[in-house]
């Protein structure tokens, strides 16, 4: 019966591992391949840590099961090994993880820097943002500059508006200005592996570079009220020509019904 418990503690990590191995084939894994360069590197880091952690997980759980197994194999009246520990062992199992962890910490700094530190952003994004991505309860409002203009922080009369859909060109880094009109929200594009909170009062630039044309989901990842779960938008990545055409279409629609002036008034 005692051995049962050792096996018990061995058994479940095995199940867990099997589950993880099965996961990708069952769809319990990342939603598609990473859509951006950045996402690729983020996922690479994830896999690196996954490797380290899996080794640790197996090692520690094996050790736990083993000390139990070994104790279970011995008789009841067996005397316990009287020891207060071992400094050299402790030193080893402090220093080894210390190096591993320090390595992880340092190894990923550049990805973080590139994603967040403005001076590390790709050159192409420094000319300005293609759109403003404004969260509000419970939708995403997209504001493009008028064709041929650059995006200003304040709404301009010729600006073009759309809700819950952002069109950007494929194959080059683009930057958007993330804002919120009311409470805090978060821009989460799972296929792009990107996330950034939209904070009231701040204009936060987010850049991404999607090589492949397609539709990518955007959800909200910061609790923002009852409709938090339904802030669904999408990023349409397409060729530059298609984006231009889309802009022209937007402009036509908006000048026709006199919406432009209204919109300018509103801000």
């Amino acid at each position, binding site marked *: 019966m*005692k051995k049962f418990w050792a096996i018990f*503690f061995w058994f*479940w990590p095995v199940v*867990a591992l099997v589950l*993880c191995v099965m996961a990708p084939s069952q*769809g*319990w894994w*990342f*939603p598609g391949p990473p859509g951006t360069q950045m*996402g690729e590197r*983020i996922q690479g880091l*994830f896999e690196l*840590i996954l490797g*380290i*952690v899996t080794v*640790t*997980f197996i090692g*520690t759980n094996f050790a*736990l099961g083993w*000390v*139990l197994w070994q104790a*279970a194999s*011995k008789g009841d009246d067996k*005397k*316990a*090994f*009287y020891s*207060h*520990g*071992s400094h050299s062992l*402790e030193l080893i*199992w402090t220093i080894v993880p*210390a190096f591993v962890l*320090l390595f992880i910490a340092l190894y*990923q700094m550049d*990805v*973080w*820097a590139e*994603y*967040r*530190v403005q001076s590390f952003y790709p050159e192409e994004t420094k000319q300005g943002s293609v759109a403003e991505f404004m969260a509000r309860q419970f939708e995403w409002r997209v504001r493009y500059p008028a064709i041929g203009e650059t995006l200003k922080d304040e709404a301009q009369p010729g600006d073009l508006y759309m809700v819950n859909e952002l069109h950007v060109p494929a194959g080059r880094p683009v930057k958007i200005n993330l804002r919120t*009109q*009311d*409470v*805090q929200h*978060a821009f989460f594009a799972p*296929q792009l*592996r990107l*996330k*950034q909170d939209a*904070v009231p*009062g701040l204009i936060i630039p987010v850049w991404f570079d999607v090589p492949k044309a397609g539709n990518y*989901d955007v*959800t909200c*990842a910061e*609790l*923002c*009220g009852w409709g*938090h*779960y339904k802030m669904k938008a999408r990023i349409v990545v397409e060729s530059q020509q298609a984006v231009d055409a889309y802009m022209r279409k937007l402009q036509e629609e908006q000048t026709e019904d006199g919406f432009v002036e209204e919109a300018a008034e509103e801000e």
Partner: protein
Amino acid sequence: MATVSPALHGHDHADSHGHGHHEIGFIKKYVFSTDHKVIGIQFLVTTLLMLMVGGALALAVRWQLAFPWENMPFLGDIFGLFRTEGGQISPEFYTMLFTMHASVMIFLVIIPVLAGAFGNFLIPLQIGADDMAFPVLNMLSYWFMWPAIFCFGTSFFIGGATAGPAGGWTSYPILSAIMEAAPGSGDAQTWWLFGLTLVGVSSMMGSVNYMTTIINMRAPGMTLFRMPLTIWSMFITAILQAFALPVLTAAGFMLVTDRLLGTVFFVPSEIIVNNAEPTVGGGQPLLWQHLFWFYSHPAVYIMLLPAMGMVSDMLSCMCRKPVFGYKPMVYSMAAIAGLGFIVWGHHMFTSGMNPALGMTFMTSTMMIALPSAIKTFNWIGTIYDGNVKFNAVMLNCAGFVALFIVGGLSGIFMAAVPVDIYFHDTYFIVAHFHYVLFGATLFGVFAAIQFWFPKMFGRLMNDKVAKVHFVLTFAGMNGTFFPMHLLGIAGMPRRYADPYFHTYLEHLLPMNQFMTFSAILMGCAQFLLLGNFAYSILFGEKAGRNPWNANGLEWSAPSPPGHGNFDEPPVCYRGPYEYSSPEAEALGQDFILQTSPPPAGVKKADPAHH
């Protein structure tokens, strides 16, 4: 020390106390008692009840995730808890559910069960004091729980099923600061904040008391490095409480005044929420996040360290072996506490914080895994080559170690900022903290309940039932929470009333249903614990003073100890973990109480010299 029959009023030594006291009425003795043991048991029972409440809320959350927008059985129709919705969970109600689930679990279960119940019960007993330094304060710290419970309850019920605290347990402004942001949350959110403040006051009173008691009321011979790790952990926890909690209390007041008095600490200007007038302001929402996590990160260690301490004690006893590396265990707890103060920013990696801060916080967060690693390996080292007693206490402790490893390791993913960009606010986080909070802490608590039960009530709990409880809970726990890692990887955001609204998450429904069934299994298993607890108080096997043959000072007192705890003022001669030591051998046993004078002719062993 032979077994002495447990006397409820072990009071033949009344005159050794400053005041021979007379008949105390029932109320003074069991209700408004200033006796730390009674207060500890009051805390324990209260928190177990709150565990049911929090668990019921969790099951409601799980119901919605498995069967979105379907009428809930039992709670929905029968009790009519939210009959207005026809038994259906509305999105607002879902928000209330997980907010209250987290608040109840954290503020009314985990924190009070560790510090309040076990801290109170064990500190004086383990250091050889007759009570806490400030018994009245101690009593107040229990009785401040009830107004807090009342406030939380009011906040939940005040507006029916559509109005409630709407901010999650983290209550980020300005969702929580501006009434219009969450229609209906008006008074509820305010009540919630009052509840939070009251819990804070209660814990603050407790922590000053614990620190004073541990510093100044130890029995003769109980040097710092002869204190059981439980005491060390309680001490360090109290320090964390004392220095981190006031910041949350202060921030809470600021949020309350933002809501009620028009202050603008967290409200920037010209924000238009829900078509209300634009705000005046100039405050910054990020300030709340910093202040909140400045407390709440140390708080996660407040929710873990005492369990770590108790598990160390219990493992040592159940393996009949000294704790592997006593001093490193102490230092690593101190290191966790110290580092715990400088890692709070890891909850804010994607919040728009300054990227330089992000790097700093990432490095310190990684470093906090080191002391945890020491502890983990030392626990395994403690079991190694021991004479292991495979009872429910031992199993729960081993479960603690196993699950803490999982929870801790998933923390490493999130500590890496780029990876956290993806994982922040997904179910990966939810998996992480349930592994550490439920997996580690609660398993530690289950073990501790069974271990110290005889000291509390003079009877043992049933080991067989406890084992079944362990297996079911362990299985249910893994079944519920392990898949959450995978959901997180699949990109399922947390706090979603209906994740399947998004096409890329639709296929996760069956997995969620499986998790819900596991959760129900685990919930049912808790009745075994409660039943065992209640049954054993009345009918359990009688225990003597020292049913586990343990070393601690508490085991030299009667079970249950009377008022004043010890028959005579105890004197401590050695460290707490001298199982199977030569001294013990000399007495022909594998343990030696800290109070037994050294047997003649045996070299004295003290872990302090290692």
